[in-house]
């Protein structure tokens, strides 16, 4: 909450600076035609120096805006908190990675945030093998989060094996939804 408020304030401030910069730019344009070459060059240099200074700020503004956009994008990516796996497989799928990176970055930026990774398997195969398989899925996600900036102290893993299916059906649709790791935030 605090952070997004700060971003907004910065955005407004720099927005105002940016408008000033735009006004200066139009002044240069006008002066360019009226002033003699040298003076114009001088002025241009001066103005350029001015612009340059302001441009640095403008870029900073752009940078902040990108961050703000990134924050929104990160929030959207973090809305995804369930990640699916193939049968008897613990490899993170390519389409899970952007969301997992967003979770990693959030954890990296918020050291007090804590997550539990719940590993699950579908009902096929044996109960204990599935418990181990689901645990390895959770560990696989844990390693990925750590590789992308999260600290091991922020992550706990727990396996429920095939005991807590998301869907009760005995078919491919249910099974594909049941082979999963769920990220659950204990604190944000």
């Amino acid at each position, binding site marked *: 909450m605090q952070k997004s408020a700060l971003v907004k304030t910065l955005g407004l401030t720099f927005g105002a600076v940016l408008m000033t910069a735009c006004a200066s730019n139009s002044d240069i344009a006008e002066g360019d035609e009226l002033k003699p070459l040298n003076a114009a060059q001088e002025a241009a240099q001066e103005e350029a120096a001015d612009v340059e200074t302001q441009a640095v700020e403008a870029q900073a503004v752009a940078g902040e805006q990108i961050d703000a956009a990134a924050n929104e994008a990160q929030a959207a990516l973090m809305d995804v908190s369930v990640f699916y796996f193939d049968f008897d497989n613990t490899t993170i799928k390519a389409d899970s990675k952007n969301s997992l990176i967003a979770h990693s970055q959030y954890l990296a930026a918020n050291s007090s945030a804590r997550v539990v990774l719940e590993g699950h398997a579908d009902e096929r*195969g044996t109960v204990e093998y599935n418990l181990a398989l689901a645990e390895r899925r959770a560990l696989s996600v844990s390693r990925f989060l750590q590789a992308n900036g999260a600290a091991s102290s922020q992550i706990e893993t727990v396996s429920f094996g095939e005991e807590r299916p998301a869907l009760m059906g005995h078919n491919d649709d249910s099974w594909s939804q049941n082979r999963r790791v769920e990220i659950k935030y204990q604190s944000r």
Partner: protein
Amino acid sequence: MIKLIIKVLFLSILALQARAELVIEITKGKQSAIPMAVVPFKWKGLKALPENVAQIVANDLGRSGYFNSLPKSEMLSLPNTEEEVFYRDWELLKQDYLVVGEIKQDSRGGYIINFKLIDVNTRTALMNQKLTGGASSLRDIAHFMSDRIFAALTGLPGAFSTKLVYVTTNRERTKFNLSYADADGAREQNIFSSKQPIISPSWSYDGKKIAYASFENGRSEIFIQEIASGKREKIASFKGSNSAPAFSPDGTKMAMVLSRNGNPDVYVMDLATRQLNRITKHYGIDTEPQWMPGGQSLIFTSSRVGKPQIYQVSLADKKPKRITFEGDYNARARITPDGRKMVMVHRNNGRFHIATQNMKTGVLQILTSETQLDESPSVAPNGSMVVYAASVGDRSILAAVSLDGEVKFRLPSKYGDVREPAWSPLLK
């Protein structure tokens, strides 16, 4: 006989609520099954008996696959003593053996059963016995009688007086029970209930304790529960998962799977000192340890070659040796009491079934075909049958198959899903 009374006492100590019982359906019988008749027993009491003893014995023997029990409706006469037997009736019905007897009440309200096992072909009594038990023990006496008859005719110990434990759960998976019942599914009681999953119940070799993994504290931890007292003890709650407990044959150790070092590995705990001996160390999955008879080595499931296969490891050298090579999914192996055969979950053409593998020759035989997603095989203590969990329709039920695949029966529950059966040792 005193043991029967003790057993009854110990059952009543379990002051637990009865549940919907499992109902047996025989789905496939043995071609070579021996035809025999258990004639309804004589009873002169004023009130009807609480249990139909002859029917229980006939069901036990019929379900074993070794015998075909003649239904009462097909009997031509109903003798209660050897003298009353008119052999021509039974020869006409092509019966090899006959059980006749009578039930009396003793002065303390208990029962006395005198029975004879008769060979129709030689017209001689093979067995003449008197069994006694307490007022509520008729069912125990019946199973005991089945054990005696089975042993006399097959040379194998009967396993009708044994018990099953299994997990029952509602469809929503919000309530889990560890249930305890006779081997025929009768007299079901819950010995532990939880809102969180319960998995992997397994018996101590003396039949007095059950170990299992419970998620009651948010993750799997291993508990030992004394059956008679209900007393529970948590023995493993290390970081990560604690699961797949298996008592050693001498009862002093327990094999288990712990992920305290990140990856699931097999450990052996000394139950007296609680010291851990790490048996496997591999980045793959190592799980489902089971003791070989003698307690010097374990078999377990490992994904170290990518897909689950069965390995054997001696506690002395800790060098696992792969022992299954057919198929890409072999898991949860159990050993027959004589150590000759292994029973396991085997995937064939994408379907999960129960298979046996000869430990000497390595020859694999698939035992089940009608059920789906077969798992959790557990061998009867006389090595005759395997009970397992399977999917039929959208329910999870218990089913059983003989070690030669010839006899099959189901124990469908009236309530929710039934999973993870474990057959008790022979109870003394």
